[in-house]
């Protein structure tokens, strides 16, 4: 069957067997390997992508269910101008170690910040309950999401504005 999605702003189609999950379609048919296969049964969140504004486990959604919808994957976050604040902060704080859970965690956090620009630590924790990380212990991730949220709320977001002089200045941390 032919499935057509808007992925990271581009219209993409693929002919896939009906049992294909959104995760397999993204990874194997569209070669977007950012979303990971951690468990394939909805337990770990490594496969998280955003479908019509909501974070979903791509391993639990059939490609056919996503037909006609808008999908954002980790590959769609950074722009030519720079990194998404979450990506920038996660890099600077060392929030990821092996990184396997990273794309999922970042996408879940993005979906959260899109709806809740000023989340409390508890709200961040609740949002990330479906994302397992075996390496880090989550502390830096939760701090990172808060930092990114603050960055996104400030009018001159250094991560987004490629030309900002603040970019070259080292962070005071």
């Amino acid at each position, binding site marked *: 069957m032919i499935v057509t999605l808007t992925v990271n702003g581009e219209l993409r189609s693929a002919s896939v*067997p009906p*049992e294909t999950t959104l995760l397999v379609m993204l*990874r*194997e048919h569209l070669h977007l*390997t*950012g*979303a*990971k*296969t*951690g*468990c*394939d*049964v909805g*337990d*770990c969140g*490594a496969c998280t992508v955003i479908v019509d504004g909501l974070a979903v486990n791509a391993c639990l959604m059939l490609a056919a269910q996503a037909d006609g919808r808008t999908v954002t*994957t*980790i*590959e769609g*976050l*950074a722009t*030519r*101008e*720079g*990194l998404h604040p*979450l*990506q*920038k902060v*996660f*890099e*600077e*704080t*060392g*929030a*990821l*170690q*092996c*990184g*396997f*859970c*990273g*794309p999922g965690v*970042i996408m879940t956090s993005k979906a959260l910040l899109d709806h809740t620009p000023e989340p409390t630590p508890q709200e961040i924790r609740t949002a990330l309950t479906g994302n*397992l*990380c*075996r*390496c880090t212990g989550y502390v830096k991730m939760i701090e990172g999401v808060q930092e990114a949220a603050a960055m996104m709320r400030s009018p001159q977001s250094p991560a987004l504005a*490629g030309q900002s002089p603040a*970019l*070259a200045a*080292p962070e005071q*941390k």
Partner: protein
Amino acid sequence: MAQDLMDRELDVLDKERVAPVETLRRSDEALRLPAVAPPTALPLEPPLVPQVGEQTRAVGLRAQRPDSRNHGLGLTRYIDDIALPGMLFAKIKRAGIASARIKRIDTSRAEAMPGVCAVLVGSEIPVNSFGPSLQDQPLLAHPIVRHAGDGVAAVAAVTEQIAQAAIDAITVEYEPLPGVYDALEALKPESYKVHGGDTNVYASKVIKRGDVEAGFAQAYRIYEGRYYTPGIEHAPMEPFTSIADWDANGRLTIHASIGRITLARCDLARTLAIPISRIRVIGTVVGGNFGGKNEIRHEPVLALLAKKAGRPVKGRFNRVEEFVASTIRHAFHMDYKTGVTKDGRLIARQVRMVLDGGAYCSFSETTLGKACILSTGPYEIPNSLAEGYVVYTNKTTAGSMRGFGAPQVCFAYESQMDEIARDLGIDPVEIRLRNMFREGSMSSTGQVLHSVKVKESLENAVKKFGWEVQS
């Protein structure tokens, strides 16, 4: 004058060397992929090389990983993100029964399925064994199944779904055998012998210092306790995944998320009966190891499937296989007997431990050795005797995991330390300080220790946790 000139020249050279890096770094900030490693948050002066008796300044500082930008961009290429042209997908049928003899395997329905390119069973494998220390593990069980996670047949097909359907279509007839599921049971002479022979013990170790009996004779009190720690799965986020690919000259390339390349090549060379020079193992970025990705697992099966099919083959464990067909941390049964003086000094300790090795050896010997060496704890004890045994049981294989046996024995000796402290009415911190290793102490193996910081560490921890000694 000449000296002056030289200094100036050096200055210029220095600037030239430094400036471009700085410029590059600044432009990197705007680019998506870094070309220059990020400036680390760790101070370079004074040096981070540990100096004897000095604490390094790394603790408590933010550190960046050079690969973290790629992680955040989703660009890190883990093994499962790699696909070769024409690559097939493999699945392994797990026995699902812990102890049995395979009577018959029928693969005909699987072989007839469209999309299935190769089927493999244990009886066709010329050298059906592997293992990092003892080669006691079959690639695919034949004819004896020793634990439920043993593979009994494997399939390579054009998609994962077809491979799974083919696996489901394979029927295996088993004759159930008795089994042994407890390490202490496995020690008994009448127990079922997992690998035949007359014992389930496959490695043992004894470490002796002084004379424990004499120590116990002098003791004010003797404490005895039995401690147990269970098996634990590493549970990395990235499941075991590998790709096997043969070239036209009969050379094998394995892409795998593995931590020990050369060990993997040796083990593969023996099993596949080809020289090690014809085997290349490419270790990919590891999505979590924790000690579980130190040895080959399904790689020889993938290699044989790839050879049969004439195409590259990828295999990926599912979550259930991660638990039943990988290795786990050894479960430990530990008996501790400790003699102390009136003022809480340890004068004799006898340790006997039995490790549940599961169905195959893996890294059991290493784990046993380290556990025995560390079993007396960071304490100066003049008389000690540690004995350890690893036994086969019909359970998931135990192998290496962070600490190689050290956390298990730590649980036992620290638990007993608390019991002794409570009974003697000594503060738990104080009793440890009285017995702790110091500069020049001798360990149970006879090693004289230097740079001993255990006292400072404990005092620091006490302060940080707010456990000031109450007298």
